[in-house]
């Protein structure tokens, strides 16, 4: 995979600190699955956490903390894999990064896509907590006027490609946007463009289509 757009340092630091909303953390984990460059970078941002752990004042433990844990060491292991770091065989669509494939559990074509406007379909991942995460599927030649609103917004291209004011984005690339960015992605091949979009604030569209789309998205 030829990836040319990566995360901002600040985003990887938030990922390492564990402060991203669930959808954004999922998206970062997906890109990391594909991108050795960002895996190297996240080793550095994780090491900030490790160094801070070394510098923390130790807290008092329960009196029998060690004994009660030693007693559990021989317990049979149960399912404890966290999707974020699991490397097991992905369920569902093998073209997807494993963390997302495990969450969806089915190939993308079999998912219940909902039409939200001309040439645009989506699936809300309905994750808990702040922000939103959705899959967006945009038909060839369709342009989606789009406006980030104050918060942070991450986009990971899963399939196909698009062009906008910020460049060309292909499979594996991320757009890491903040503040008030107005952009208009245009799907520039004859293949659907499918992306994962995660925000820490509700997603808003602008322009004529935005006004049409907004009520259907229900934001």
């Amino acid at each position: 995979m030829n990836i040319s757009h990566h995360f901002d340092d600040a985003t990887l630091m938030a990922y390492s600190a564990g402060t991203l909303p669930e959808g954004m953390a999922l998206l970062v984990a997906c890109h990391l699955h594909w991108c050795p460059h960002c895996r190297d970078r996240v080793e550095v941002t994780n090491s900030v956490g490790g160094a801070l752990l070394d510098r923390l004042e130790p807290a008092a433990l329960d009196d029998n903390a060690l004994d009660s844990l030693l007693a559990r060491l021989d317990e049979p292991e149960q399912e404890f894999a966290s999707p974020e770091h699991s490397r097991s065989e992905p369920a569902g669509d093998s073209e997807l990064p494993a963390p997302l494939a495990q969450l969806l559990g089915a190939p993308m074509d079999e998912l219940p896509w909902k039409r939200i406007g001309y040439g645009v379909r989506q699936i809300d991942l309905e994750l808990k907590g702040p922000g939103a995460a959705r899959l967006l599927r945009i038909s060839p030649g369709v342009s989606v006027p789009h406006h980030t609103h104050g918060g942070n917004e991450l986009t990971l291209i899963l399939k196909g490609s698009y062009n906008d004011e910020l460049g060309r984005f292909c499979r594996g690339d991320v757009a890491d946007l903040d503040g008030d960015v107005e952009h208009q992605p245009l799907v520039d091949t004859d293949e659907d463009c499918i992306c994962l979009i995660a925000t820490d604030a509700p997603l808003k569209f602008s322009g004529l289509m935005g006004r049409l789309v907004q009520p259907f998205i229900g934001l």
Partner: protein
Amino acid sequence: MQEFDAEGGDVNAAAVTPQTLTPEQRRKQVRDEWSACLTRLAETRDKSEFARLFGYFAPRVKSYILRLGMPDATAEEVMQEAMLLVWRKAHLFNRTKASASTWIFTLARNQSIDRMRRDKVQFYELPEEEPDPEQRDMGEHSIIAERMQEAIATLPEGQAQVLHLSYYEGKSHSEIAEQLGIPLGSVKSRLRLAFSKLKAHWGEEV
């Protein structure tokens, strides 16, 4: 000309280094020892190695979890789960990729996140303990001065503060912006600056 210079200036004699370690080198030595201990644990499955790791890391892991805002009993539970993962996943530890501290930090972080998502109500309903914002800021500064030492202490205060709020207190960038009364973009640019300095400083540790 070249020869004359080489003979004239006795460069090597002047560059004799003392055998004492700097505090940073000493910390690296400690970290390396724990990484070796964790590697041995993976190979031997020796519970006494695990008990040693527990003695050093469990109180720090609990301290980290408490800082994220969990009550003591929950922090104790999450610490136990995280340390149990240390035992179970030790074979996945790769000391060329991360130090034991960093690896255990990521386990503790993931356990904390899982717990917070499960017990969302409990987490968000925690009362604020420090209502006075001025006092709160002073508290943070003194913690930075005490504990972040060397590398982090060389950061300008504004950068150290955002790093602290993010990693130690689990605040999102937007929450930090709100708390400090600065734009989100400033929080991020401070973090970027901090990161580029720490990257250079901790290059060897990674």
